């Protein structure tokens, strides 16, 4: 049983139970992390595109009240709304409510609007960061799990070697080969997860920054409106 294709399968099948368990865990982790990787990739690029579209429309000189109505209608139709639209809608709604009340103190209006936008912002931040902790977990832990499996397998092999009359390479080689598989699987699971985590974390950071920038800009527009009355 040397490093031959057929025997990888037989090695996995013939592995001892703890090693098999480790391999199973790692395989599941790998499958899950790839699901997350693809899902997050789609979600984040969607968020980026949405933000771009939103900014284009926003700065094209559209009537803000009308745009707000449009977005609200759209959110009602689809049922969910994501991203920067929520921040805008939350701020605008709060601003309208406060400024239409009788005793509208400009400072109070601005404070309320900012607070509403801050809340919406942190909600969006949460949405963007969903699943990233899982990727980080897989990235950091799965090599250790793999190592555990390997150590266990080598322990077994060496113990078996002690019972043999003569210690040949052929006696240990299959065991070691089997024991090394979990490490390979751990790395196989971890490497994509590390790459994806770093990439997506940077992306989330970037998107968050642009959301904040937008909310500041929007706030300054409202500020001008409040104080120009």
């Amino acid at each position, binding site marked *: 049983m040397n490093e031959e294709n057929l025997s990888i399968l037989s090695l996995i099948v013939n592995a001892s139970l703890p090693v098999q368990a480790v391999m199973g865990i790692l395989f599941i982790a790998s499958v899950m992390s*790839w699901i997350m990787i693809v899902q997050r990739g789609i979600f984040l690029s969607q968020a980026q595109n949405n933000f771009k579209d939103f900014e284009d429309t926003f700065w094209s000189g559209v009537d803000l009240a009308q745009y707000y109505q449009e977005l609200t209608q759209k959110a009602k139709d689809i049922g969910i709304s994501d991203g920067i639209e929520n921040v805008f809608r939350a701020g605008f709604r709060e601003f309208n409510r406060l400024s239409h009340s009788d005793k509208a103190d400009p400072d109070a209006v601005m404070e309320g609007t900012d607070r509403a936008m801050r809340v919406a912002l942190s909600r969006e931040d949460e949405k963007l960061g969903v699943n990233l902790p899982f990727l980080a977990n897989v990235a950091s832990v799965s090599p250790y799990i793999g190592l555990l499996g390997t150590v266990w397998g080598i322990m077994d092999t060496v113990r078996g070697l002690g019972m043999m009359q003569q210690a040949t390479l052929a006696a240990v080689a299959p065991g070691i080969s089997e024991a090394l598989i979990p490490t390979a699987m751990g790395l196989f699971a971890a490497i994509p997860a590390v790459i994806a985590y770093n990439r997506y974390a940077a992306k989330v950071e970037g998107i968050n920054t642009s959301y904040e920038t937008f909310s500041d800009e929007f706030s300054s527009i409202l500020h001008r409106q409040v104080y120009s009355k």
Partner: protein
Amino acid sequence: MTNYLSYGLGAIGSICIHGLVLSVLLIPGNGDTQAIVIQPQYINSKLVELAPKKKVVVPKRTKEDTAEKKRERQRRLDASKAKAKAKTNADALKKKKADLDRKERERLALEQDKLERERLEELQRQELAAEFAQTLAEEQSLISAQEDEVAANSYRQLISQRLSENWSRPPSARRGMETLIRLQLVPTGRVVGVTILTSSGDSAFDRSVEQAAFKAAPFVELQQMAPSLFEKKFRQVDVSFSPLDLRL
């Protein structure tokens, strides 16, 4: 909505990637290993059929032709005899003339026949020559294509001979037992691994086979082999051991 969709896409993508990796890893590659069958030594006799002799058809055909002609002539003669009998002697002159005429015609026909025969023979010769050239060309291409195979076969022969020399069968060996082993070789000719692919069911027999492989071990002749050929055919060699000569 889009959330579920993207999770679904993620699941599909993930399963695809893992399936791909697993299939690459686990589907056994068809290593170009050809099983060598080890049998106790005896000489195989084999009927070698040379290129089948071309039957010359032409002479036969011409013979047939002449036979036909003869029969024809006979028939015609008979007919004319009958006619002659029927007619009176007054027609004798006429008949003689006709006879002469006929003889002339027959001579012409014979001549033509001869010419035809010659032409046919010429054609036959050409055909044979063409066929010969074609077989030659085929042979040439086959030789160049099978050069590797021939070399590999000679090495296989060598391995099989050495293995059978070093194989001592246990008493428990029975006719019909077969053990298929896989030798892992390195270019120096050493055997680095022996795997039993198909056990005979008799552990003593299997052990004897393994021992034979290790006893025959350094196949130093393999060092002279072209590395590409070694990689292609001799990294792993499948050998099947079976005692066909036993009566038990």
